[in-house]
């Protein structure tokens, strides 16, 4: 399952860090975050657990950048 999400991320450096943090999440196959386009390209295993995965992604993202949000 591959999907593109609009996100809010405040600094380019944090985008990199968040990307690395999300990579470690269970169920994530690959992720790429673009600060410039404010987008997250996510490839994940289980389509049914999408919302669960997104909330855990938001959680780890927020740890790096408090303003991180999946829109």
């Amino acid at each position, binding site marked *: 399952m591959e999907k*593109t999400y609009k996100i809010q991320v405040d600094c380019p*450096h*944090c*985008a990199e860090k968040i990307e690395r943090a999300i990579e470690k999440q269970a169920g994530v196959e690959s992720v790429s975050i*673009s600060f410039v*386009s*404010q*987008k997250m*390209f996510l490839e994940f295993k289980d389509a049914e657990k999408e919302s669960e995965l997104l909330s855990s992604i938001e959680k780890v993202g927020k740890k*790096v950048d408090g303003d991180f949000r999946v829109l």
Partner: protein
Amino acid sequence: MKKHQKILLRIIISTILIVVISFLPIKNNTFLGLAYILPYLIIGYDVLIKAVKGIVNGQILDENFLMAIASVGALVLGFIWKDHFLEAPLVLLFYQVGEYFQGVAVRKSQKNISSLMELSPDYAYVEKDGEIIKVSPEEVPIGSIMVVRTGEKLAIDGVVESGSACLSTLAMTGESEPVDVKEGDSVISGSVNQGGLIKVKTTKLYNDSTVAKVLALIERALSRKAKTEKFISKFARFYTPIVCSLALLIALIPTLIGLIFSVSVNGLDWLYRGLSFLVISCPCALVISVPLTFFSCIGGLSKRGVLVKGSSHIENLAKIKTVVFDKTGTLTDGKIKVKDIYFEKVSESEFIEYLVLLESGSLHPLAKSVCEKYKIPVDFTRIKEYNEEGGYGITAIIDNDTFYLGNLHLMQRAGIKMPVSLSEKAVYLGKNKQFIGYITFLDSVKENAKSSLEELGKQGVSRLVMLTGDNENKAKIVAEELGLREFYASLLPDQKQEILSKIMLNEGNGKVAFVGDGINDAPSLMTADVGISMGAVGSDVAIESSSVVIIDDDILKVPLAVKSAKKCMRIVMQNVIFSIAIKVAVLILSALGFANMFLAIFADVGVMILAILNSFRALINKKRGKI
């Protein structure tokens, strides 16, 4: 109030406050320090809050935290040592200016893409049971009749069923000349009707239409990061910890040495130098400007109808040394058409009759195009002793006259005197010993093919190769016309891929591009370092297998893509070298005590702003010469 407006307001208010305070006649050091705390908090309260949150979340090398340490340090030093008050609000002020600029850059580049997004029409007018209803494009089934009036955008690809209109494909292909369409013409979504009324029968679903595909492609482009981008993220990963460790060493080691060897060392001065290091510990200039440059380049090219599927392909495009073309559909349009006829001593109808009689028996492509143009019934019993020779042409007897139809060699051999000499591709007709006319053909080579090859040469492409399934002879004609030295003829699609692989093996460091029409050469498009497909945006296979998709079939877009990619890489390199050089210089100067914290932040933010501005140059494709 929006977030960026809020930051701007804070920047303005704190700047005014800082200026006012610096002119106030405050003599007491402590009062002065307390006065500066007001603008400091206005400009930096969020940085301080984020810094605290960062520590709670275990993010020690968070940039907010580092900025907070540096500025709080400056304030504390102001109170216990000497006047560093001004630097505290200034550091955060410039930091916020940098943040603001980053926001501007992001919004600006998103705007560039969203102007493309505007291509996507929100609705379509569809005829249903004799009524015209407004529906969302996703809901239109194939074969529906869509009504497009003046000023409206086409939502879905299709064929004009009735009416005529003038369509602009500017937004899709970058082609500024509008085209007139009438019944039977196929039209692509994203075109704007500039005048007229057409009914279009849809041939695709919205999601398979050109517009939807183009948008999906661009959206995805940024997820395929270039090597340079990956290098920068790696660099960033090490840069901050290294600079922070250096800061710690500089702040502490001299004091420790002083304590151990009991020499007098100004520990506060070294602490200050260490704090200045923290100010430049963010690799922001690099981390933002490199992807931004790629993004600008991709955006700029898409405006001209060239879609690049990822930053990584920009990198490869810039290194192309060899371009391999599939002939048909790229260098030639695959169609040979009769351009003109000329006749003397016979009437037009007689002349055409002779032509059709003679050409009907031939399988030569030129003969076929003649028969296609003049579909008239003829009596084949009139023709005798028909003989066709490769390299010459046709000889036959019609009604007891000997006819010669072929090239100049045939005319010479038959002893026919030629009153004309044509430089274009032509076939001559002789009756007995007399010249009676000729046919010229529209060249099958695309108008811009030759200049495109020349432009590629100018962009550093040193080897140009043509592959074709056509026979040697036909291939040679095209190759000669284009000035191509290397070509391979009579190839099957898998043989094309084989030859391409061989070329790639010999290539060394340079990259090899393959240009095809994307319909039957998917294997080659995938094999090449850069697969470029032309005029086939409707085909899934073409989009899947190529790295660059040229929406129309303008071959000049190939050198344009290379040129633009090269410019992009130059800007990336400038930004990388410039940013690193300035950072290293400032680090050295502050370690030696020549640079204060103010200079450090000024240089840091300044470099970032310059790098961002430089990135935007990648958007511009100024037309010079042909491209």
